[in-house]
């Protein structure tokens, strides 16, 4: 298969239509990338938040007997 364009500058210019074609690609790739990263960030933030919550709960349940030992000291 042969590329349609002879040179790289021709490929960028696309015969006066380069601005339109490339701006479409930039907008789409940019927006989709932001959306994917946003979805990933959401997931990671939730996992972090739930992990902190669980650690706190685990601490609370293990700390319950400690007041008893403190009283005896």
């Amino acid at each position, binding site marked *: *298969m*042969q*590329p*349609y*364009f002879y040179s790289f500058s021709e*490929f960028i210019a*696309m*015969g*006066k*239509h*380069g601005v*339109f*074609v490339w*701006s*479409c*690609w930039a*907008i*789409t790739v940019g*927006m*989709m990338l932001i*959306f*994917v990263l946003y*979805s990933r960030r*959401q*997931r990671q933030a*939730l*996992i972090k938040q*739930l*992990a902190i*919550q*669980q*650690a706190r709960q685990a601490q609370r349940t293990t700390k319950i007997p400690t007041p008893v030992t403190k009283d005896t000291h």
Partner: protein
Amino acid sequence: MPNLNNVSSPSLWQRIWQIFLTTVGTKEFFRIFSPWVKWLAILASLCLLIGSIWGLAFAPPDYLQGNSYRIIFIHVPAASLAISIYFSLAVLGVIYLVWKIKTASLVAQALAPLGFLLCVISLLTGSIWAKPTWGTYWVWDARLTSMLILAFLYAGVMALFAAFEHTANRGKAAAILSIVGAVNLPIIKYSVQWWNTLHQGSTFTLTAAPKMSADMWLPLLLMIIGSYLLVATLAIYRTNTLILHRDQGKAWVKEYIRGQAK
């Protein structure tokens, strides 16, 4: 035929239905589809990458529109998915309202922002394409206007999902708007036939032979397949985030979080 006299023992169909209902629960959805995300993402990226390079550099230009037609490789997949996702929101809405399957509502909630984004992308790329082709960025044409209404419907569905965060009714209002808004879909589809519009008819359908040459429609087909795979990937991933949030009090989520923290 189910035995109607014997009420106490469930019929075969009822038993199958019960088994089906347990497989569409949030926990099962998470367990079954989580491993798919990676592979679907790889496949989607491959299709989109090959399709883009092929469409941008190797496909011949259109004899009338020159190189500006290359926008078709984003515009058509984005528009087709914006419509398909809205259709799936309506179907998921019916499933949620009739059978009370919570997973359906969560999938719809995960998909709505993606559908909105693709609708906006199709409007933006369409108007950029319109400038060199029609000489204007925007006309109040039937196809363009009905597509703009679709974007507003998406915004409405998203707002309704966000509005009922802490009630048991979450998703019900959004499901109703999704179903009612689906009236717009046939209007979008047939707008180019019912009204005299600037927008061209479809060059690409599942039933008929393509009206363009193979080195134009093959990259387009790749881009469409890649976009559907990307949407599937994001739908699973985002639904699973919502499932983790919703079921955070349950033992299996706690175990999963412990596994992630290590």
